[in-house]
Structure formats: C-alpha cells, structure tokens
C-alpha cells in the first residue's frame, strides 16, 4: 500500500504550519522527514495518520493494506506511550484485544514480536523497570503486532542516549532487511535520516514547505557509519537546513 499526500496545508488558528505538501510514500521505502524545530514535521505525521484533520488537501491510500493487517497506519511515539499499569505483554495485548485476539491466538503474535525485538525475557516486566531503549523496543513490538501497512515514527529515538540510539538504529535496519516495511520517519537528527532513509524530505521552517527531496541509493544493509558518500549527503542536508534552523531558533514562539 502506498500513501499519497496531496497538496496538504494546515494552520492552527491564524498561524500556518504546513503549506502545500505533496509527497508520495512508496511501499517498502523509509521516507525520512527532517526540518528545524517547529517546522510542522510532527504535525505532518499526525495528519498522515488521521490523528488531525488538515485545513486543506488530503492524504490518500493507494491500494489495499496487506492481508492480516489490523491497523494500517501505526505510530511509534517519541515518548513510547506505554501504559505504566500494564506489563510488556499487557501493553502489546492491549492493541490486539479490540480485534478479537485473546488467549492463545494473542500469545502467538506476542511471542513472535517479542522475539523479533529481542524482548522475550521481559514479557512480565512493567515499563518502569525498563530502560528507555527497552521501552522503545516494546513500542516497536507493539506496532509490529498489528502488522501495519505503514509505520509512522515520530522522532522514535530522540528520547534516547546516543549509544542506545545506534543500537536501535541497527535493530530497525535489521527488521527492515528481514522483512521490508514502509515507514514515514520524522526526525531532527540528520545522521538517523541518512542511515535509515531511502528518501529524505527536507522541510523549511514554519510554515513548513518541502525544500528538497534527497534520494539515497546506497542499500540500507551496506550503509556504514563512516561512509564518505553518506557523509557528503549529510553535509548537503546540513547546508540546506543550517540557515532555516538558525532563523527558526531566533523566532519568538508566539509570534
């Protein structure tokens, strides 16, 4: 299933946040969205997943979600959004219960996604017992459980320290290599974007417009940390963003 963002604009009251966004999210690709803070990239993600209604334009699904898909557009949040009163198992079972998966049928799915995210030993743990990286793994497992057509990741690694971030990036790449998935990945971290993105969408500062779309052809599995081609890309992205970030930083919040 592809997603098409069709001349999308959004404003909060009088303030425009996004202007005329056109974007094609192809099946099997990771599309990274970067931009200075406050450029509306998280808003864009909420609009894509139907958590907010756009002021103008629309988001279209092309084709049908794959078989067995319980929740076509599934988020992974920056703050993990785990229920503190449910165990790891309970947090995943939460999103299955409403689809009629209980007991043994739910356990089969839960065991599978926990194995894929290396969490099998933590089934009975409560979120407060887990580190940030583990919490985000649980959130990824929860998202995998509903077999989404498109993952919508809202700065999923931004709340983690840099070592954990590296580990989780490797995990995401591993998951993608084993079974390709489609994702929109919002981040402000250029390194994450060049490591994970097939396509990188650079937004301008508020109101967010698409400044450039950068394609990265190096296959995900062969991207090394020191790769000079990737470093060039990252430098190019930084050149694009530098002025915008500087200007965005000097803006008054309520201006």
């Amino acid at each position, binding site marked *: 299933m592809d997603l098409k963002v069709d001349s999308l604009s959004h404003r909060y009251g009088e303030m425009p946040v996004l202007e005329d966004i056109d974007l094609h999210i192809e099946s099997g690709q990771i599309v990274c969205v970067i931009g200075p803070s406050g450029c509306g990239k998280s808003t864009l993600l909420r609009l894509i*997943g139907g*958590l907010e209604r756009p002021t103008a334009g629309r988001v279209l699904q092309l084709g049908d979600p794959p078989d067995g898909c*319980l*929740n076509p*557009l*599934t*988020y992974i*949040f920056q*703050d993990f*959004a785990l*229920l*503190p*009163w*449910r165990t790891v198992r309970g947090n995943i079972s*939460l*999103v299955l*219960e*409403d689809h009629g998966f209980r007991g043994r049928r739910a356990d089969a799915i839960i065991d599978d996604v926990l194995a894929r995210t290396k969490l099998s030993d933590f089934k009975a743990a*409560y979120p*407060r017992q887990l580190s940030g990286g583990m919490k985000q793994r649980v959130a990824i497992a*929860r998202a995998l459980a*509903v077999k989404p057509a498109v993952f919508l990741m809202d700065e999923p690694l931004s709340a983690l320290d840099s070592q954990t971030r590296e580990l989780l990036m490797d995990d995401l790449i591993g998951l993608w290599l084993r079974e390709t998935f489609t994702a929109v990945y919002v981040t402000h971290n250029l390194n994450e974007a060049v490591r994970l993105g097939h396509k990188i969408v650079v937004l301008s500062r508020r109101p967010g417009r698409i400044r450039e779309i950068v394609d990265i052809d190096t296959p995900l599995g062969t991207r090394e940390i020191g790769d000079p081609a990737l470093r060039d890309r990252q430098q190019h992205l930084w050149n694009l963003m530098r002025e915008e970030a500087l200007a965005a930083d000097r803006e008054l919040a309520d201006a």
Partner: protein
Amino acid sequence: MPDTSATQPEETSGADSRTSNPPGPPGEVLRPVPFRGGGFAPRRIGVVGWILFTVILLLWELGSRTGVISQLTLPAPSEALTAFADLVRSGLLWRHLEASLSRLLVGWFFGALLGITVGFAIGLFSLARAGMVPLVAAIFPIPKIALLPLFIVWFGIGEESKVAVILFGTFFPTVISTYGGVDNVDRSLIRMGQSFGLRRFSIIWKIILPGALPAILSGMRISASIAIILLVAAEMIGAEFGIGAYVMQAGNLMATDQLVAGVAVLSVFGLTVSWLIGRAERYLLRWRS
C-alpha cells in the same frame, strides 16, 4: 545518619589534608567539599506512631491517677476502657456498630459510585462539564449537616435521611477528585489508543480509568473521613442506635467515660478505613512503586 556523615570528614580535614599532601600547589589548604544533598525523602518508620500513641496514653493515665487531670475535665483511659468493656458485655456495642456501619457503608458506597460516574461524565463530556462544575462548586461548600432537617422532611426520620446525608456529603468530593484524575490522564496515552484504533469504551476502561485511579483513591480517603463525620452528626439527631447516638447520650448524662469510649471507637473506624484504602492502593497501584 546524613548529619554524621556530613560532619565526620570535616573534623578530620584540618589535620588530614596537610599531612597526606595530595598533588597541588604547595602551601594551599585542601578541604573536602561539604555535603549539601540528602533529605526530602520521607522513609517509612512503622513503630514511631505506636510509640507516640502509647506515650500519650500513659501520660494521660498517669495525670489522672496523680490528680493533675481532674476527673471532671477528662476521665482516665482506664475508666474509658471500663466503660467500653461494659458496652461489650451488655451486647449493645454490636447493635451500635451494626447501625453505624450499615449507614456508613450504604451512604459512602452509593455516594462514591454516583460521584465517580458524574466525575467521569464531567471529564469526558464538555456539556456535562459546563453544567456540573459550577453546580458542584456551589453545593460542595454547604455544610451537609445544615441540610439534615430538610432531609428529614424529605426522607423521614428513619434510616433514609441519615444515609442521604452521608451519600450527599461523599458525592461532591468524589466528583471533584474523579474529574481531576480524568483530566490528568496523560493525553499522549489516549492519542496512542486512538492511533491503534481502540474502541471508545476500551480507551475509557483500559486507559482513562486506570490513569485516574490514583486520584480517585486519594479522593476516597477524604470522602471516607467526611462520611464518618457526617455519620455521627446524623446519628446525634434522632437515632436510637449508632456510635453517634451513644456518644450523644453519654454527653447528655455527662458520662464522660462513655463519651471517650465512643469517640475512641470512631477513631478506630477512621484508622480501619484508612488502612483498608491503603491496602487497596498498594494492590491496585502496584505498578507504581
């Protein structure tokens, strides 16, 4: 403990630092950085409460025996205990307890149930909020005891008016703590539920209710105390049995030993309720600790 650990190094520092001479420019005095952290972390010390309780009772008894506290002002704890033993022996204690506990439980249960329901309605529906919040604010501060005559006119002199006072009195604090709790549920968790396509009922039952539970339970602590206060007040007006009636009769006869015994029973009521809610909190909120 933190005090000694803070002062100990300070005492030795003067002699120590110059003799052992770690690297640094010669002639300069080396001092350890003083400890400034610690504190602000209450610990559980179980025995202190019991010790204080016992000491007060012992001093009181001693004061009565030596005549420092006159019999007229306050009876000795031992006398109150004798009065209590009489009450047990006559079998009246159970009738008083039965009357009081049934009023308390029925009034508190339905007051809390209605309060939680209305609190959820306020938390979830803008219309209910717009209507009920000012209404609650207007009625909550009225002393419910002042309304007891009205309740007697409406519901009769029997059990109903007493239960109604307790129900009414516990309803309002429960409403306020419940909708406060619902308001404080992390919105990002609700968005998460929506983003996974959870049904509205599932979001309320599995996300909002557990999220609001800490506030609801602490509201119950308050409403339970209010319920006990109102119980006694209601029983003081026209009740044959009940701890409040017993205290009232004792007061009318100036039987201060019975009065103290009755008041002690009420205090045990409060302790028991608080202990029960503590247990409920530890069980229902075990994910927090």
